[in-house]
């Protein structure tokens, strides 16, 4: 197991290295000179030259890359637009995305698992058709449109919730204040909707698969109550792939957050990414992409490790 984890970590480092080179080369190809952008209008050529020197933009490309990475890790890489360290900008917005993503995952999980189980137990009933149809509609709906429709209905028509923004926070969290709680409802539902639908489908199919296993038939034939069969025997085994998917949500939430945060003006990393791309703020783009990719691959790894603990049949050599 330990050697497996070490090997996977080495792979992750390699993957992130390639990602960083990929992103860096892409940014190099982008039109526009970062030094000029950073300097802003009305700066003299000498000053631009000084900025270029400071950023290392007059060095060969591989040296530029190394400077970029070095500065990123020792915290001195500065955002082109905000004139402050990239790390501090990201750290400032990270809690917002963390909170939104976390509660979206919780919401998606607590609704999708019971829905999927109900759908599987009562296969081919009205309840099942309703759940599967709604779930299929769910995966067919873009998150930003869900957000728009919720804003239209709850904020504009019913005037029950604020349209956008994050509202007041306490200890960095919105949910501890009433105002913040009212603000988080729409982005949270929108962000969780697709994952909720996907997880419902997965729970259903996984449950159906397990219910056909021999040991379930055995459990039934020895006279166990149906609830005992489902909760004690089928449920726990069916949950393995579902838990994997919940782990994977961490990664997909980030992608969804880009659209949800932009739509609802939630001040998190996703919105920062879009605005940085609009502003050509290479430093922030570079750091954010690496951070997001890191989160992505780490979530895969953690899921794989937990999987081995949860299911003794699985071993990694």
């Amino acid at each position, binding site marked *: 197991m330990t050697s497996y984890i070490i090997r996977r970590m080495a792979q992750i480092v390699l993957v992130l290295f390639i990602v960083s080179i990929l992103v860096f080369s*892409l940014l190099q190809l982008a039109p526009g000179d970062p030094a000029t952008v950073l300097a802003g209008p009305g700066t003299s050529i000498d000053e631009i030259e000084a900025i270029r020197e400071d950023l290392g933009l007059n060095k060969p490309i591989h040296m530029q890359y190394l400077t970029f990475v070095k500065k990123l890790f020792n915290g001195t890489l500065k955002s082109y637009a905000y004139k402050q360290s990239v790390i501090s900008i990201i750290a400032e917005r990270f809690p917002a995305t963390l909170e939104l993503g976390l509660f979206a995952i919780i919401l998606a999980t607590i609704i999708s698992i019971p829905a999927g189980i109900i759908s599987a137990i009562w296969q081919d009933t009205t309840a099942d058709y309703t759940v599967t149809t709604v779930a299929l509609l769910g995966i*067919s709906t873009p998150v930003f449109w869900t957000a728009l429709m919720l804003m239209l209905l709850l904020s504009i028509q019913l005037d029950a919730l604020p349209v956008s923004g994050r509202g007041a926070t306490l200890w960095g969290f919105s949910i501890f204040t009433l105002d913040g709680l009212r603000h988080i409802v729409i982005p949270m539902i929108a962000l969780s909707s697709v994952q909720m639908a996907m997880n419902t489908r997965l729970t259903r199919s996984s449950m159906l698969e397990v219910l056909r296993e021999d040991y379930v038939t055995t459990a039934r034939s020895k006279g166990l109550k149906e609830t005992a069969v489902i909760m004690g025997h089928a449920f726990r085994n069916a949950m393995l792939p579902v838990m994997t998917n919940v782990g994977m949500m961490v990664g997909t939430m980030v992608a969804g957050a880009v659209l949800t945060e932009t739509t609802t003006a939630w001040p998190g990393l996703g919105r920062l990414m879009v605005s940085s791309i609009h502003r050509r703020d290479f430093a922030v783009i570079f750091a954010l992409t690496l951070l997001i990719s890191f989160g992505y691959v780490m979530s895969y790894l953690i899921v794989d490790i937990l999987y081995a603990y949860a299911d003794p049949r699985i071993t990694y050599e």
Partner: protein
Amino acid sequence: MSKDKKLQEKKRKKIPRLTFILSLVFPGLAHFKEGRAKPGFLLSSFSALQIIILVVGLINGRMAWFGGVLDQVIASWASVFFVLGFWLLSYISIKRSFLKQESGGYWTRAARGFMRHKKGLVGAFIVFLVIWSALFAPLVAPYKPLKMDLMHTITSPGGGGHPLGTDNYGRDILSRIIFGSRVALGVGGGATLLNMIFGGLLGLLGGYYKGFIDSVIMRFLEVLNSIPYIIFALLVLSVFGAGVLQIIIVLGIYGLQAARIIRSEVLSVREEDYIMACEALGAGDFRKIFKHIFPNSMASLLVVMTMRIGINIIVVAGLSFLGFGVKPPTPSWGAMLQSAQSYMTVAWWMAVFPGLAIVLTVFGFNLLGDSLRDVLDPKMSASGR
């Protein structure tokens, strides 16, 4: 069965005169008479739809036969040929049903299974509807998508002769949605096609040659997978500029999940005895891959492709929504939603209808994909039915 017997069979099953006449009167009628209500219903409803499109186009004087805008010319000729085509199709289908042998190949059986699949038929119907509106947009859309009705800006649905209302420039929402299906299908479909070509090829290569090539390909996919699609697309589009072609290429490169599926398929197929047999007969790699292994992966490729189009349509809409998609005057669903956001408080219809179009289209593709999976690939089936 010998040739003579086959001929006798054909002779015995002669088409009844009435059936023959009915098949010429209107597509699908003969099927009803023969007790095949479902294909009959499909044929007659699609022919009716097609005739309505043709008539509407003729009445409104939207036809352009020889000169004019290319898409209008194509739509005009297509509407005529499709009407004729349905007649021909219904006749051939009736004729074949009298020659039909029991059972048939894999695809024939799959098609028969699909016809029994209610969900799949609904999905196929929705998908056809979208393809039709894209193809015949100039004939069926009430207005030109860029035409501004300045007397009726931000008009609610039904007002000023605009069934779904107008936007801030007085452009007809319904017409823009109908024309927007072209962007959705063109970009979503184009990207998916690239996905399948690249993904399929990588999967075939990796699965077939294994070893070094395989691990390089898998690492490459891993790198792609470690960047969320939307961020990858935003990055590339911000560098190379937004546009139809750029989006198709970006999404075409990113969504290579097909590679994994094809690879595992190839890995299992290549160990089969018949592959060894054709190797013993002296078949080269090329022949083995494209003649024997590839056809065996077609079913899963088709399923993945159908599901992928839905995802790609959503991503295209998302990118346009963020302002990195199709350039503004071109009608696209995502861009329509983007402009709708500024008018949310005054014009709900600007935000509702383009979104419904996206949901309906993607829902259709997903339904179709789900059912294709059930029919074609029982292994992958969610419910195992």
